[in-house]
């Protein structure tokens, strides 16, 4: 079975106060070496499609139409073969 693993993150140009807050929390815990933190979403889709090329095209369309908002977000994904 094919699985799509999708990461959606805010564009670099978009301020991420949640990421900044987590970074300062890490600093408070003693992890001073974190210079940047961005929070995003991770989505896992199981696909009926068996052809990886077609699956890639479908997932790209899903990302463009719904899973990410191109005004504020970027996305990357990979298609993996996983057990049924």
């Amino acid at each position, binding site marked *: 079975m094919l699985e799509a693993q999708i990461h959606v993150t805010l564009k670099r140009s978009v*301020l991420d106060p949640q990421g900044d807050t987590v970074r300062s929390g890490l600093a408070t815990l003693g992890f001073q070496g974190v210079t940047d933190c961005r929070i995003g979403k991770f989505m896992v889709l199981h696909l009926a499609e068996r052809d990886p090329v077609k699956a890639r095209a479908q997932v790209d369309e899903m990302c463009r139409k719904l899973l990410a908002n191109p005004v504020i977000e970027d996305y990357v994904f990979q298609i993996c073969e996983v057990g049924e």
Partner: protein
Amino acid sequence: MRWGVLIFPGTWSHQDFGHVFQDVLGVDWGYVWHKDTSVAGYDCLFLPGGFAHGDYLRCGAIARFSPVMDALIRFARDGGSVLGSCNGFQILCEAGLLPGALLRNHSLQYRCRWVHIRTESTDTPFTQTARSDQVLKIPISHGEGRYYASPETLARLQSSGQIVFRYSTPDGQITEEANPNGSLENIAGVCNEGRNVVGLMPHPERASEALLGSEDGRILFQGLLEGVLRR
């Protein structure tokens, strides 16, 4: 003239709009369910606040695909007047009817309080009876109201006068302190290029009676009553 108030699963301000239309303004109005596929018979449409479809994924992202949205988009493209408040604004941005997007408040906190907004454009059906630079006292109630648009979009909005409201002090100064959510350029509301679709984060329907602390929100409806038919 008949006004329609859209309801999605999770919308919560529709009754406030209905109350103002019925009991305060005395206009003919009705609810439009998100599964309706026609908005025929309505002269103006309102998208109220709330958490449409739970605001899952992103605010307004799922609502944008509700069956009624095709009819709404056609209505707007044909020049029909559409106002989105709060979640309604988020839905209109997700649907591509308005530029930009609404992000998590800079404070990461939900903000529910009175704000002041300065009228930046009176050239929309909803602000045509307001004075230029008129400051309105209207409440906000949102966790995700930080307006964002790319620098290019922002420049276009400014040059074409599509910024309709900015958060300001009570005397109309645009300051950082007056910005409740970190919106770029203190933007509280924008319109589309055709100027018939307006979205804003504040809730005019909650500021339409003196008893509730302000009647300033009525200005957005008053303009329609006096002018929608000539547009």
